[in-house]
């Protein structure tokens, strides 16, 4: 009896404590931080981290435009961050409180999106590239170093119904534009139309536009070739290994170039805990914490200090850490203005209907 009562009291005390705790609100990508990292930060700051997730920049922007608030930290990709900066939605960083900022590779600092990194600290990056079932590709004699394999009927014939592409207006257009030799950020309508025709010609061979379930389809062996994100393809390979499949899932950066999405941590203007948020950013700049994410999901890592904690097979994977020659062909997507968005949406409708 006495024992139970004490336990109850203890519980009350604990829950009372939990209520008094500071809470850091993090609005992040799905599966974009390791649970251990979060737990360690919670212990260190004696606070609680509350997370909400998005699976698409556009979704995050649309939700913020629709009035979502209360987030301390958001992790947008460059173009979305640019839009947030221009909306005046972010809080400038107090860099004196970020001593570990020096860990970041200068190649990822001072981007066109946020000159001088007034608002943002690089978190991780992904590449949009070609993922494939290595055995099948070898068997069919298909090239894996070019977008042609996604867009050219002479290759597509061999993998009809076994390909998925991303269900994202920007990403798919970027791949098509790159293949045509244009910049991924080209906004000339004639070039967009050329890209549209290329996509419409290839579409009959594709199984679906897909946002994320291609990970599973690759693992199972239903789909042999995808236009997808580097970390998703990494995940598919891990899953295939775990399931004891007889094939491996590989990825490669096409020689025409690809999209690099650098995600950065930023402070939302209305976040109630800016101090805690800065503490979190500096915590994530620690090489060990940063490497944890890369080891978990196979994301690219802009943190130089993290390299020594990253598993060698990941650090040496050219689809995650591309060599300088491939890196030169990588592009980050810029934001579109309202007229461009409307035109692109129309082109997308044409792609879907035709």
């Amino acid at each position: 009896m006495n024992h139970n009562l004490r336990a109850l009291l203890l519980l009350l005390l604990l829950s009372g404590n939990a209520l008094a705790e500071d809470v850091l609100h993090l609005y992040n990508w799905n599966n974009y931080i390791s649970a251990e990292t979060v737990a360690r930060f919670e212990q260190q700051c004696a606070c609680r981290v509350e997370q909400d997730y998005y699976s698409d920049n556009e979704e995050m922007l649309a939700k913020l435009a629709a009035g979502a608030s209360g987030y301390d930290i958001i992790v947008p990709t460059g173009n979305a961050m640019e839009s947030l900066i221009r909306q005046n939605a972010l809080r400038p960083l107090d860099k004196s409180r970020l001593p570990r900022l020096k860990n970041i590779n200068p190649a990822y600092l001072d981007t066109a999106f946020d000159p001088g990194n007034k608002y943002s600290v690089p978190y991780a990056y992904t590449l949009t590239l070609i993922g494939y079932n290595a055995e099948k590709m070898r068997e069919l004699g298909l090239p894996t170093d070019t977008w042609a394999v996604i867009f050219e009927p002479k290759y597509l014939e061999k993998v009809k119904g076994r390909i998925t592409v991303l269900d994202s207006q920007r990403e798919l257009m970027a791949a098509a534009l790159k293949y045509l030799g244009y910049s991924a950020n080209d906004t000339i309508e004639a070039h967009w139309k050329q890209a549209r025709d290329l996509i419409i010609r290839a579409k009959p061979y594709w199984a679906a536009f897909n946002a994320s379930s291609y990970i599973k389809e690759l693992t199972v062996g239903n789909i042999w070739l995808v236009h997808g994100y580097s970390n998703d393809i990494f995940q598919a390979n891990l899953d295939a290994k775990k399931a004891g499949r007889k094939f491996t899932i590989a990825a490669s950066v096409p020689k025409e170039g690809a999209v690099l999405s650098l995600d950065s941590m930023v402070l939302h203007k209305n976040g109630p805990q800016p101090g805690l948020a800065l503490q979190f950013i500096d915590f994530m700049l620690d090489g060990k914490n940063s490497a944890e994410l890369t080891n978990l999901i196979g994301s690219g890592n802009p943190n130089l200090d993290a390299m020594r904690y990253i598993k060698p097979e990941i650090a040496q994977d050219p689809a995650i850490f591309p060599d300088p020659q491939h890196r030169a062909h990588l592009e980050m997507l810029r934001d579109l203005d309202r007229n461009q968005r409307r035109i692109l949406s129309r082109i997308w409708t044409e792609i879907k209907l035709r």
Partner: protein
Amino acid sequence: MSSRARKLLAPARLTKWAVSGPPFVFLLLFFVLPGVIMVIASFRYPGEFGGLAPLAAADPNTLHGFTLETYRFFFSDLIYTEIFIKSFLVALATTLICLVMAYPLALLIARSPKKRRDLMVLLVILPFASSFLIRVYAWMILLGPQAALSQLANGLLGVLGIAPVHLLFSPFAVLIAMVYVHLPFMVLPLYTNLEKHDPNLLDAAQDCGANAWHRFWRVTFPLSLPGIFSGSTLVFIPVLGMFAIPDILGGTGDMLVGNLIKEQFLVTRDWPFGSTLSIMLTLAVLLFVWIAAKLGTTRGRYA
């Protein structure tokens, strides 16, 4: 009016407003007003980052105020008319398949002994007890490449020498789920109508020498037209605005008006154009209701 009558009327009027007032005000606020706002939004410019551009701006160079721009954009390219026609066709196909599947069932229930009817109706309604998404998800499993159904279909095709087909992520998957989700909407009004038919009519027809087919085609079917029309309305209208089914089960070409509207609000951040599309959808629904009502009355006259 005498003063006595007025006194009697006053509390009655008070009661009337006390009863109808609250739901009236609530729906005015949360149904009618949002509709009006949507109409207004369709005449505005999109905000640079989403939402709407301001009505008035200090700097005359920034977009503000009202415009016909979205309507001009809508008619500037046939693609939008095309997507409406496509949605109309999908809704029509769904309605017809539902009708063909629902009719025998409704007829059977209506002609069953009274005791059994309630149970049979309940059996039609029970699938409603599962949420809409689950019913769609069920087809994701059934049509998946490893599912027995797909294996069977492809086995048959293989015997015939036809290359295997992918059932999931295809127009076929979209259509079958549309039918599945809306079938009860067709069965119930049909049954309610068929149940009321006087069996003496059929006996009379039989006495006049009409065979089974004639009895159905000349007596039962024309009498059931009102049921067919109300069932069709209940199936057609929701299908016309559907986005979730193409979203989950559709392949590379399955986009309907609903998907386009959703995209304007959640991806493109173009609220004015999304509003315009919504208004066009409303007009399409009204057009359909009008056609159905017209057909209902002219047919009714001959019946």
